[in-house]
């Protein structure tokens, strides 16, 4: 049932990368419980604008949980408390009248803050750039059905490929590690016969890049898996480790 609630927001405000910052408090009144969390921020921003104040900057685009653009820490939880949900798909019906909601950006050394809730996640592109692809040029590929792939393997690869690159795993990790993100791509490609050829080099290159970019180490805290909106499994990290060890063996033989 639709109803209206009044809540209080405590929002992290920061004008730029290295400037004074802190929480500001705003009332959000008459919020329909059918609103998405981002629509609630829209309403607050409309009011801030009308009051002559600077609206809250936040990244968003698709608003249907697929582009990976949105994300913030809500009461200590990445993308809010609902399992398997991005912030844009999280609805106000999960709150009650009178609640106070604390909203903060992703916090990680590798993701510097640009403004308010907006962070720079270009480090993720850097990791993919290091080897998150299969080296085929356009043209000349054989018929698509010439490589049969067992359905369960294709499904496993798809599970890993579902990662939206949002960065919640990094924000949730006490070490700000990017292992879940990196392992998802490595797994997807290592599972498929097309990707096997380069699997060893890929694992080495991507993991090295990840270390270079100030992401922390993985110490098996499993927070990433718990907070991932696409429920990417931590078993991908185990697969990454196997690929990495194999790759190490191969490269030391060389």
């Amino acid at each position, binding site marked *: 049932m*639709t109803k209206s609630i009044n809540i209080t927001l405590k929002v992290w405000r920061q004008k730029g990368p290295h400037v004074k910052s802190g929480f500001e408090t705003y009332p959000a009144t008459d919020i329909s419980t059918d609103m998405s969390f981002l629509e609630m921020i*829209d309403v607050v921003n409309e009011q801030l604008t009308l009051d002559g104040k600077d*609206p809250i900057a936040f990244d968003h685009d698709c608003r249907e949980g*697929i582009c990976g653009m949105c994300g913030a820490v809500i009461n200590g939880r990445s993308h809010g408390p609902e399992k398997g949900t991005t912030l844009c798909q999280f609805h106000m019906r999960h709150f009650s009248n009178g609640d106070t909601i604390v909203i903060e950006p992703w916090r990680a050394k590798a993701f510097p803050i640009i403004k308010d809730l907006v962070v720079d*996640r270009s480090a993720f592109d850097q990791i993919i750039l290091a080897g998150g*692809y299969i080296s085929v040029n*356009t043209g000349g590929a054989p018929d698509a059905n010439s490589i049969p792939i067992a359905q369960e393997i294709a499904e496993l*690869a798809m599970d890993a490929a579902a990662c939206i*690159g949002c960065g919640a795993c990094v924000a949730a990790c006490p070490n700000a590690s990017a292992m879940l993100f990196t392992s998802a791509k490595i797994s997807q*490609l290592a599972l498929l016969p097309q990707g096997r050829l380069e699997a060893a080099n890929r694992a080495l290159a991507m993991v090295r890049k990840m270390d270079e970019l100030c992401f922390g180490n993985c110490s098996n805290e499993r927070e990433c898996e718990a907070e991932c909106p696409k429920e990417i499994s931590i078993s991908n990290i185990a697969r990454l480790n196997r690929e990495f060890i194999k790759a190490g063996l191969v490269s030391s033989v060389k």
Partner: protein
Amino acid sequence: MQLDAKIPSGPLAEKWDKHRFELKLVNPANKRKYTIIVVGTGLAGGSAAASLGELGYYVKNFCIQDSPRRAHSIAAQGGINAAKNYQNDGDSIWRLFYDTIKGGDFRAREANVYRLAQVSNNIIDHCVAQGIPFAREYGGLLANRSFGGAQVSRTFYARGQTGQQLLLGAYSSLMRQVAAGQVSMFPRREMLDIVVINGQARGIVVRNLITGEIENHAADAVVLCTGGYANVFYLSTNAMASNVSATFRAYKKGAFFANPCYTQIHPTCIPVHGTYQSKLTLMSESLRNDGRVWVPKTPGDRRPPNQIPESERDYYLEEKYPSFGNLVPRDVASRNAKTQCDMGKGVEETGFAVYLDFADAIKRDGKDVIQQKYGNLFQMYEKITASNPYETPMMIYPASHYVMGGLWVDYNLMSNLDGLFVMGEANFSDHGANRLGASALMQGLADGYFVIPYTIGGYLAGTDRPEITTDHPAFKEATRYVTERTRKLLSINGKRTVDDIHRQLGHILWEYCGMSRNDDGLLKARKLIQELREEFWKNAMVPGSSEDFNQSLERAGRVADFLEFAELLVIDAFERKESCGGHFNEAYQTEEHEARRDDENFCHVSAWEFKGDDNDPELHKEPLVFENVELTQRSYK
């Protein structure tokens, strides 16, 4: 001016081969001397930038989002068509070509569409080679499903995330070229103007969305892949940043805008439920494979769906169109939903929804099978509506979704401005007056992987271009224009927020230029749009500064363009005195309320030329010639 589509001569099936042979080639050593700007990183832009980089060109690639991987294409759910005929169900290149031409209500170019059908098969091959985890059968071969407007099963898919997987494939190829130094990425940039020198597109002016800096970039050719303008309706299924600005600026610099009134209203979206709503969510058309559309037979019947017996349900699509049933094309399905709701048979609190019911499919195939096919869509539906579609039917209603209109291009995908190529949803080329499901992904990738690599070479090798740098006065002039406009936006100091004005624009268009249109309404809309535009420039409120990360300013610029573009859309709709595909003028319908074309007078592309802010645009017509198919009244009975 006579528009020349540059369609190669010869039999339809041989045109592309012949043309590829005749196009001049750029010698491999010379390719690296050429710089190509690609604006957009969706399926069209991402695939183009990657492929051009692979060929050895130096590419500068721009996008609004923080990473090329987030372009709006990522949201495509249902699938991508190809004429593989893996199902042995009678598909062929010819059939995909014919279905697309017919689905588009005979308002697209034969030659372009045939080429699209031809290269569709290469796309699937390439995507599999890239590691895209398409759905597979138990035997390990690729699986297919059906989409509207087709009686064969030719749609390839990756769960309900086909766009995501195809885009991540293009993105991975793109990143590989970035690593190789062939492509430079410029994310968080918005193109605000295009630079034309001696009649040739030679560069762009962009705003760095983080610092607010205005940057100039020069090149030998510019490729626009900036997506569609469905957000002109405010509420649409498109991503929030989707805009008309890039193509509209090109229009103002002389590129013709073709068929702006061909907009697609998608039949299966989650209905509108509040004024605060920021976007509408699509429920993929693939759901119509198994879902049955119905409304109560009696207007005003407000019983919950499970209490309405079979005999009191109206499965209006199945009844009216027995051979295509729930899989009629989108324009037909949307208009029928509107008709039912207008008769008072709509459901939901608002009366603006129809049921999409899976009960029979679940009974037939079991819940597991349905879950495997549509699990993530059902989950998405439940998250938004808090209702469980395994138990109660979904409620859906049409929403603005896609645009067939776009910048005019010839067979080479070049606009009437030399050196300005336009691809993907941003051009007008392949879908006529209505696009079939799963064909936009196919078109974007066809353009980027398999068309532009050839045609741009022909252009570069076949034209003389003076050496220029960003010191050229044309860059200074464009920069001045952009800076001045930004200053103006920030100094309006009015009382209404930009979103509020955009919402009103959306209402006007939805009411008078949406699923059905009439002359009086269009005239009224035009006036209302002019008034609203005036109000915007007097009374909008754009906070913040230009030298900052300022999302309000970004939106204001886009809405200002929508307010101008909306008028062009309405002018085009008014001018086209027929109904075809997504353009339905009530004065032109058959006795059965289907769109009635006027092939004698309107079998042409309407391409509009900008004539200054105070003048009406000028219409140019490109006649459509059909040599291979017979124009018929579309029938899906």
